[in-house]
């Protein structure tokens, strides 16, 4: 197992979410569901984060912000789209200012639907993300050896 997946640090950003999924993300890290027992820590710095939890869809104004946070993260990194708005745009998909789900801005690795997404699903999604993190980390190490 790679170092990162023993204690994946997450960074959370709210695209154009209604906040329902954001408070469920925070609730996952609180004593009710205690995501922190898996070593998950919420950081504000993209350079310290392994997993990018995005909630909400992207609109004209925040598509640049989402891309910039993703670009600032270091490899290997995983993106988890929390909530149906982040997956496909959700109930707002036909609004004039909604471009779509987060995959319109950055590549997404795990989709966790729900309105609002339940903390159990977020934990599942992070665990799935951690498995992907392991894969990417192994691939990166192999590429380094090969080069």
């Amino acid at each position, binding site marked *: 197992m790679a170092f990162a997946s023993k204690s994946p640090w997450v960074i959370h950003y709210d695209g154009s979410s209604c906040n329902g999924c954001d408070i469920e993300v925070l609730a996952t890290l609180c004593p009710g569901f205690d995501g922190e027992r898996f070593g998950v820590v919420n950081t504000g710095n993209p350079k310290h984060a392994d997993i990018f939890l995005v909630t909400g869809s992207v609109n004209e104004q925040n598509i640049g912000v989402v891309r910039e946070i993703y670009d600032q993260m270091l490899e290997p990194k995983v993106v988890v789209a929390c909530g149906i708005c982040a997956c496909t745009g959700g109930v707002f998909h036909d609004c004039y*200012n909604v471009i779509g789900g987060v995959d319109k801005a950055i590549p997404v690795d795990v989709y966790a639907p729900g309105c609002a997404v339940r903390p159990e699903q977020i934990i599942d999604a992070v665990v799935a993300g951690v498995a992907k993190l392991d894969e990417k980390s192994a691939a990166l190490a192999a590429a380094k050896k090969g080069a």
Partner: protein
Amino acid sequence: MTTFEQTFEELPLAGVHDLAAARHAEGWRYVQILAVNTEEGIDLVYSYMKDGHLANFNVSGVKQTDVVPSITDLYLEAFVCENEIHDLFDVAISDIAIDFGGMFYQLAEKAPMTVVSPEQLAAREKAKKIAAAKAAKEAKAAAPAEGPTGPTEEEIQAKIAGLDPEKAAKVRAAMEAKARKAAEGKGE
């Protein structure tokens, strides 16, 4: 306990700033400004509240060429609604205290709330046609003694005589059924 009541009044565009000044002097709170996209232009609704009385003032039919005076010199917090109305409805508002110049919301399209989609347009046309037909029908029903508006009885009979016998019979039966129905309707 103060009781809540709401009122709606009309307001001319020229009176917007004076109304705000009057309300400010009397100690009314500013509540909000909203805009509605209508066929005749943009309607603006200004709301003020004092002691449980919510007074809404409707400015009808503001055109693209009209310039609305800002009330942020009296009520600074109005800048949020005024910038939003400018961005979403393309209404020109002058002298906003904190003016984002169209960049309050960075939108993909200009004045999106004034955009009427093709489906919406079709639905509105249909609703208009139905309403017009209904109005015409009611007008007709209200004035039956004004003389026949359609073809006269002789003309109809002449037409039927000229038709194929089978078709003529069908038309006659339909006309009789219609007359029966009209009689029943009148009898009610």
